[in-house]
C-alpha cells in the first residue's frame, strides 16, 4: 500500500471516528448494555475507537517510513 492510500484510509477512519463519538452518531451506542471486557458498552465503544485511531495512525506512519526507506 502506498503512503498516499494509507493517509486516505487513515483520514477516512478518523472521519468515522468523529461521527461515532459525536451526536447524533453516538446515539446508537450510548447505553451501558451489553458489557464487554467488563466495561459498559458506551465505555467500550470509546476505548475501541482509541485503538482504531491508533491503528490508523500506525498504518500511515509505517507506509511513510517504507517509502522514505
Amino acid at each position, binding site marked *: 500500500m502506498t503512503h498516499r492510500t494509507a493517509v486516505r484510509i487513515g*483520514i477516512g477512519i*478518523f472521519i468515522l*471516528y*468523529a461521527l461515532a*463519538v*459525536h*451526536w*447524533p452518531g*453516538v*446515539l446508537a*451506542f*450510548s*447505553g*451501558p448494555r451489553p*458489557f464487554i471486557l*467488563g*466495561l*459498559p458498552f*458506551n*465505555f467500550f465503544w*470509546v*476505548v475501541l*475507537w*482509541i*485503538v482504531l*485511531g*491508533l491503528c490508523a*495512525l*500506525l498504518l*500511515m*506512519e509505517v507506509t*511513510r*517510513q517504507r517509502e*522514505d526507506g
Partner: protein
Amino acid sequence: MESWHVVTAVVGLYLVATLVVGLVGGKRATHGVAGYVAADRQFGLLAMYFVVGGTVFSAFAFLGGPGWAYSRGVAALYILSYGVLGILPWYFLGPRAAQLGRAHGYVTQAQLVTGRFPSRTLSLLFAILTVAAFVPYIMLQMSGAGIVFNAVTAGHVPHWLGAALAYGVVVLYVLFGGVSAVGWTNVFQGIVMMAAAWILGIYIPNLLYGGIGPMFEQVLAARPELLTLPGLDASGQPWSWGAYSSTLLSSAIGLAIWPHLFMKAFTAKSDATIRRTVVLFPTFQLFLVPLLLVGFAGVLFHSAPASADFILPHMILETGMPALVVGLFCAGALAASMSTGDALLHGAASVAIEDGIAPFVQIEERRRRFLMQLLVLSIGGLAYWLAVIQQRSLVWLLVSAYGIIDQLAPPLYAAIYWKRATTRGVLAGLVGGSATSVFFFLNPALRPWEIHEGVLGLVVNVTLLVVVSRLDPTPAPMRPAPADSSVNASPQPVS
C-alpha cells in the same frame, strides 16, 4: 514511624530526583534564546513522547478525571474521545510548523502567524490571549499540588506549603534549564505518572468489588443514570447532547493549538519525531482509562469526599492502603501537575517576551533570556498568589481559557494552508471569535442548544476570516519552507 512520614519521604525523594534530572538535563542546551525556548531543536522520540504526554496530562487527569467519573458518570468519556481526535491534525500540522520554524527561526505561534500576516497587533493579541489562558491553568496545577500534599499527609503539610514546595522545584529547573530541563523532567515524570495510574486503576476496583465487571454491575444496579450517555451535568441533572458533543469538539480543536504543546514542534529533532509522537499519543489516552475506573469505584464507596475532585486521594486514604502506594499516587499526581505547570510557565514567559514585548522594543539576545527568567518568576509568583493566597475559584477561568485557545486555530491553519487569507481577515476573525467566546461564557443561558462557547466563537471567527479575506484585494503571500528543510534536521542557530 507514622505512615504520613513514609509518604512524605517518598514524595521528598521524588522531588529531589526531579530537580536533579531537570538541572542536569538543562545543561545540555546552549545559552541563547533558541536554546532556552526551543532546546536547539534537539528532542528525540523518547523525550518528545513524554514531553507531549506529560504536558497534555495535568493534575486534571489525577483529580478532575476521576472526579468527573465519580460525580457525572460517563460524561467523563468525552475526555477519552477528544485526545485522539484532536491529535490527528498534528500529524500534518506539526511537521509543517517545524519546517517553517527551522527555515525562518520561529519559536512561537505568533511568529509563525505574523511571518505570513505581518501585524504587531496580531502578535500582541496572541500574547495577551495566551497569557490570559495560561495563568488560570497554572493556578489549577499549583492548587492541585497543594491539595495532594495536604490530603495524603493528613493535613500535616498545609496547602500553601505543598504548592510552594512542588513549584519551588519547578521554578528552579525552568529558570536554569529552560525547555531542555522541562523535557528531561517530563520523561521522568511521565513514567512515574503512568505507573501510578495503572497500578491504582487495577488495584482499587479489585480491592473493593473483586474486579472491573462486578464493579460496573453494582454501579448500574444502583445508579443507572451514571452509565448512560451523555451522563450528568455539574449539578447532577442529565447533561445535554449539545453540551457533551460541543465540549468534545471544542477540546479536540484546542488540543493541538494549545501554545505550550504547539511550541513543542519547534523543539523536535526531526519531522519524523513529531509524526511518531502523534502515532504513539493514543497510548497516553489509554492511560486515562484506569483513572476513570477509580472514579467509578468511588460511586458506591461508603463515604464521600469533601469535593468530587478529591475522590482519588479520599479513597486511597480511607481504604488504608500501604504508605508506599499512597506515596506513589502522590508522586504520580505531582508529576502530572508539575509536568504541565513547567511547560505552561515556560510557555507563558516565552510568549510574553517574544510576541508581547520583542515586536515593540529592541532587546539584546542576552537580556532577552534574562527577561524571560524574570517573567517565569513573576508569572509563577502571580499564579501562586492568586491560587494559594487568594484561593480564587478557578473553574470559570479555566473553562473560558479553552474557549479562547480555540480561537487561535483559524489564524494558524490559515497561515499554513490557506493561500487567499489576508491579514485583515485573520485579525477580524480573531477579534470577533474571541469576543463571541467571552460573551457566551459570561451569558451561558443565551447559548443555543447549550453549545460550548469555544465552538460558537469559532463559527464567528471562521466566517469573518473567510468573508473579510475575500473582500480584501491583497492576500498575504505564503512563506514556503525551503524544499530541503524536511531532510535537514540538525539544530540550527536562530538569527
